[in-house]
């Protein structure tokens, strides 16, 4: 087949003109590398967020109310103190609500003699366990009487247990948080690291009342989790919750909510919207950088053809048709573009891995950038190769054989 002959000649041409070949790949390589990295970051963020949702312990029938206005996943606009235990009690009174879990949260050091670790400490009610459906590995969960008596007891997740006790039996042992000692009464079952590296076991639970009076010294709640009887009741319940909270917080009609809802759907929507915005940016950036890559290929190929006029003349003398010369140089540009793509993917993978390894940004590899790059590179090679290739093909054989 003639086409394979020309492909072979193109490969030979690229090998013999290594310098030009390398220069030609640079533009495309950088374009594809950036495309790979951006796609990897986008996917990484998405995976991380979806994973977080999956591990928030949300069922389809539940949602969270978080104190403070503002957008999801962004820092609170201000430290809001308006959400209280009374709010939680009012919400529980709603007919569609099955469970309400008011919650405080603080990251702090837990100390066992010489061992210490920093973990997320939650002040919760006994219903937390029901709402999360999290089983005990050993001991008991917090009880109503612990809550009523503001007892200094603590339930540990698997991660702090491992760090603090190193194989000893923790039940009944005393741990220090700030200046108070807490008795370990229970251990949560281990869930294990999630795909994105989030550790759901890195937590400790104490009674909400104890947290209020001894740990945070705050009477307001950080969030309330609401579980409805039935998934279909979520929207109406959310509306009812909104009205109760607005009334309780004495918000005027014009004032914005001083709380926000977090639902799996809400997060999903946010992720999808951000992903779309990211994709638009990605398309723009990669189009520009690949156009630049294509122009680089075209220009260097034009220079290369000027250097290789003699070669073209020789080929024409021995029977190469215009179409053979066109094909040969078109193959060269497509191959160079693909080579740049492969190098770009390599570079992109290395960068993505680096970003992930050094915790700069979450990245995730999919097959998508590979397919995209392959298509883009072939197109770039064809589009920007055709002009130089035609130019080479239409050189006069007589003149090119005589050129020095």
């Amino acid at each position, binding site marked *: 087949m003639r086409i394979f002959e020309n492909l072979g000649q193109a490969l030979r041409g690229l090998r*013999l003109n290594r310098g030009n070949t390398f220069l030609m790949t640079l533009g495309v390589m950088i374009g594809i590398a950036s495309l790979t990295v951006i796609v990897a970051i986008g996917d990484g963020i998405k995976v991380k967020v979806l994973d977080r949702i999956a591990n928030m312990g949300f069922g389809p029938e539940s949602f969270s109310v978080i104190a403070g206005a503002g957008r999801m996943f962004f820092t609170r606009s201000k430290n809001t103190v308006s959400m209280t235990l009374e709010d939680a009690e009012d919400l529980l009174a709603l007919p569609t609500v099955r469970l309400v879990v008011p919650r405080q949260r603080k990251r702090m050091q837990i100390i066992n003699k010489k061992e210490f670790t920093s973990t997320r400490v939650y002040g919760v009610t006994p219903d937390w366990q029901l709402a999360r459906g999290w089983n005990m590995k050993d001991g008991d969960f917090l009880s109503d009487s612990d809550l009523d008596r503001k007892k200094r007891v603590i339930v540990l997740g698997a991660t702090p247990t491992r760090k603090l006790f190193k194989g000893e039996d923790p039940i009944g042992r005393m741990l220090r948080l700030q200046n108070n000692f807490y008795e370990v009464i229970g251990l949560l079952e281990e869930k294990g690291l999630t795909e994105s590296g989030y550790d759901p076991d890195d937590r400790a639970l104490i009674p909400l009342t104890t947290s209020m009076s001894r740990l945070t010294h705050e009477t307001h709640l950080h969030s309330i989790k609401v579980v409805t009887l039935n998934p279909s009741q979520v929207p109406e319940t959310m509306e009812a919750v909104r009205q109760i909270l607005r009334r309780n917080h004495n918000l005027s009609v014009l004032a914005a909510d001083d709380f926000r809802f977090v639902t799996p759907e809400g997060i999903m929507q946010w992720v999808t919207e951000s992903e779309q915005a990211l994709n638009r940016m990605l398309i723009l950036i990669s189009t520009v950088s690949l156009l630049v890559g294509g122009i680089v290929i075209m220009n260097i190929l034009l220079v290369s053809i000027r250097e290789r006029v003699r070669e073209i003349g*020789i080929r024409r*003398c*021995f*029977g*190469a*048709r*215009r179409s053979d010369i066109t094909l040969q140089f078109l193959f060269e540009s497509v191959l160079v573009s693909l080579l740049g793509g492969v190098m770009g993917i390599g570079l992109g993978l290395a960068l993505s891995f680096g970003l992930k390894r050094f915790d700069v940004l979450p990245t995730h590899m999919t097959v998508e950038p590979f397919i995209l790059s392959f298509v883009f590179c072939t197109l770039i090679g064809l589009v920007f190769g055709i002009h130089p290739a035609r130019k080479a093909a239409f050189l006069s054989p*007589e003149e090119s*054989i005589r050129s020095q």
Partner: protein
Amino acid sequence: MNLIEMNSICKSYRNIGFETRVLKDVTLHIEEGDYISIMGPSGAGKSTLMAIMGCLSQPSSGEYLLDGEEVGQLNDRKLSRVRNEKIGFVFQAFHLLPGVTALENVILPLVYAKRPPGNIKERARELLAKVGMEHRLHHTPGQLSGGEQQRVTIARSLINDPRIILADEPTGNLDSKNGIETMKTFDNLVKEGKTIVLITHDLEVAQHAGRIVSIRDGQIASDSDHEERGSIHSL
């Protein structure tokens, strides 16, 4: 039958409004198996004549029948095929592809052949052996001497078994010893029935051929063949 039949060939180049007439009404017939030299000072139109003869360019006017086929009006595709199948070129500056081995350089015309033979490499080896290059198959032109390069080009011109060998100053870049070797090769090719057209300005080289045509100012100034025939007639 004439293998090459050029009738009233004219070729002119247009350059920034000036028309340069390089060939003026050249008529030249060459029979199969002829050994002919084309001589003339530089600028006389030798190379242009060779380019037209080798189907590298087409005449501005006139008729060129190659092997009975009018090639003056062929399109690029057909013209390329004629070059590929009927003509073998040998150049003064060798014109081997740089960085490519002798073997692959010899194979080059078969890359563009319509029906390349099955045993391409074997055939290329045989031809290289024939010109005494069997020990240099995998050397690139840069590693070969001028004489060796010229032998590779001769092998290349023969690979597709063409009827005509067009040699443009084949000894121009060679020392006398290699020049003599090259001419011996051509002499042998004629014995095998090839038609050889030598373009040269060296009378000693030209005299290897049985017929010498000299060109001056784009016209044929003399043709030994006609003179002989003329002298026969005058007897």
